[in-house]
């Protein structure tokens, strides 16, 4: 073989080996059930049936399985993101790349909160029901948005209070949630509005739970210009918590076992459960919190004001919320959730 031919042969051989290598790596890698980063169940190997083959569904599910379980998937995604950044893109897979490492995304409400609020008002009276609209990070942190886009959230006391503290660390850079400090300012505004005396920030112990927290936005694009710190402000109220009527083995407000994992936000209330029943040693009424995940790091502050707190995530709660709460001698209802917020262009 001539030298030139030899080089060509080597190239072809390497290419073929690489193709087979992907296959081999795929066979050797164990399939994952759930992706902590993407917060979703991953596609599993489809079962082969003649009818699914003939309908063509076998083909599509096989491809979904292959994509979801592709070896080193996260690293491939990271390569892609870096390439897109080089091309000057500011929006990648729905994630907007802001300044100083802040990432943003459009949000979709997880339940029809307006309707729920109305139902609760009808059942418990207008006075007993209150609501915290968790402002979109992009509304508060306008200065960190990439040039040319805006987010708008409901204008109320909560938003005003967060805006007054916008130079503090109130939203995560790599996650769509507020930090516990951000949750505190929302709680503070709400408590004042309800005529309660909020806990004082200075009196609470501040603990850094994790120095290298990476959240949901990171999980989508596997890129960050800086990791987040996860802080904890301790209201110092001892309380017990029962999850899902005791069907779940976890207990307590905080779940330190998640701190080392990829989903450290589950430290608070073990992530999203349909029902969490909290009993404190405080005097006070029974508060029902209807919420999405924004409430998870806000609920600890509420324990200072109520004897009992029932936390419901409508996504995972299978009974009629109003009926069930009526049987629980609930005195107040609070809704904590983020609204649908779409990007607008200047």
């Amino acid at each position, binding site marked *: 073989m001539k030298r030139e031919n030899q080089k060509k042969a080597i190239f072809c051989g390497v290419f073929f080996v690489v193709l087979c290598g992907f296959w081999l790596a795929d066979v050797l890698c164990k399939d994952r059930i759930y992706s902590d980063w993407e917060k979703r169940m991953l596609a599993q190997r489809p079962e082969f049936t003649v009818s699914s083959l*003939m309908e063509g569904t076998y*083909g599509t599910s096989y491809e979904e399985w292959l994509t979801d379980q592709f070896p080193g998937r996260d690293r*491939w995604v990271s390569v892609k993101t870096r390439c897109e950044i080089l091309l000057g893109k500011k929006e990648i*897979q729905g994630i907007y790349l802001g300044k100083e490492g802040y990432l943003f995304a459009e949000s979709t409400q997880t339940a029809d909160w307006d309707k729920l609020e109305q139902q609760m008002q009808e059942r418990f009276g207008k006075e007993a029901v209150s609501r915290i609209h968790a402002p979109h990070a992009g509304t508060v942190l306008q200065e960190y948005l990439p040039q040319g886009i805006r987010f708008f959230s409901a204008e109320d006391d909560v938003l005003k209070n967060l805006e007054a503290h916008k130079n503090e660390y109130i939203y995560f850079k790599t996650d769509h949630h507020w930090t516990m400090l951000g949750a505190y300012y929302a709680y503070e505004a709400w408590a004042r509005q309800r005529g309660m005396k909020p806990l004082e920030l200075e009196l609470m112990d501040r603990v850094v739970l994790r120095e290298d927290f990476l959240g949901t936005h990171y999980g989508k694009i596997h890129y960050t210009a800086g990791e987040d710190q996860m802080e904890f402000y301790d209201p110092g109220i001892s309380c017990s918590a029962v999850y899902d009527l005791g069907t779940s083995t976890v207990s307590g407000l905080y779940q330190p076992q998640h701190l080392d994992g990829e989903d450290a936000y589950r430290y608070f209330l073990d992530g999203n459960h349909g029902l969490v029943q909290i009993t404190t040693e405080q005097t006070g009424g029974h508060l029902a919190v209807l919420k999405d995940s924004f409430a998870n790091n806000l609920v600890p502050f509420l324990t200072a004001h109520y004897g009992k707190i029932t936390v419901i995530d409508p996504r995972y709660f299978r009974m009629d919320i109003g009926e069930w709460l009526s049987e629980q001698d609930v005195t107040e209802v609070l809704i904590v959730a983020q609204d649908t917020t779409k990007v607008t262009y200047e």
Partner: protein
Amino acid sequence: MVFSSLIFICRFLPAFTLIYLLTPNRYRNLVLFVGSLIFYAWGEPVYIGLMLFSTVLDYGNGRILEYARDKGNRGLARAVLIESVLVNLSLLGVFKYTGFLPLPIGISFYTFQTMSYTIDVYRGEAPVQKDIIAFGAYVSMFPQLIAGPIVKYKDVAVELNHRELSWDDAYAGIGRFCIGLGKKVLLANQIGLLWEQAQAMPAGQMSVIAAWMGSIAYALQLYFDFSGYSDMAIGMAQVMGFHLRENFDYPYRSRSITEFWRRWHISLGQWFREYVYIPLGGNRRGLAIQIRNILIVWALTGIWHGKGSQFLLWGLYFGVLLILEKCILLKWLEKLPGIAGHIYATVTVLIGMTIFARNSLQEGLYWIGMMFGLTGRVFSGMTGWLLSNYGILLLAGILGAVGCGRRLAKYPMVWAAVFFLSMAYLVDASYNPFLYFRF
């Protein structure tokens, strides 16, 4: 199955290559035939029967033509030819234009290929294929099965029965495949996102610049998608020892529509030229007949691309432009500096592409209206956003489309880089459309 998918690249391709290489030369057509059927059946198992029917029918037609020729029976030969063309066109007509049944992928391509076979044999321009496996391999050949190029039988007749593997071909073919994959995954899909976003723009944000950006994005998406597919097809065929003709030759470098259609989807243009335009008399029977012929060919070219009046109009639009060019425009353009021709060709092609891109004629015309100021807004906030997000990619696309990267595309290091990046984009694919399902 489509080429730009993990299942094709990480499963089908290595498995097929291995089996193909291990099989002795004389059985390789069988491997190609069976492999192609599996490739096709993966997405559309039901329609595999249709393709086999087409294969057997035209194989039989070829044999009867041979018999008729041996016996000197011209009437029979003619009848067989007419029967073949009618059956193929009816298949195409029923599945493509009645809309009762979902469109079998690739039917527009393989029916045109089998027709070319019977016509070539009838004319004595190609030998009869006696081996049904070889003929099946020709009809179903997976590299060009679903998105072309349309390979005329006589162009591969020899290589169907006698072809060799060589390192030269394998090397060049792999390179060609990688470049094509990159065109599809890195350029077409990504630029296509801009077109998607431009189309979804709220009315209050639509602007002249956004409308042009959208049209340019679609024109680039279609080019990179289609030529990328052709590159992958030509590359894979070359690895197996087939040497297919080029299908695209930097069409956006053209200075006239006449030139554009010599460079765009060349195999389709040649097919119509050879089997419709020239038999109708071409340009040899006076200007009036020539104009008639051009209009027929372009109406057919339009219809071939899909049902819906916008496709017919799209074809006729180009037909009329070609006639105008023949009669006067080309003479004018010759006297003007080259840039005038480029601008003329680019604008007219973009308008044509816009008609092609939208779901209906009305929408297409509305979009063209917006390109020329219908909204009364030149720029908007979202326009600026899209420009800052896609500016570099758009520029890279334009430079690539006019051939500025052709030197780079010769280095194996570039092939490897393009391949790995494409893999990364495929693993994270959210937008990977198949544009030819209506062809």
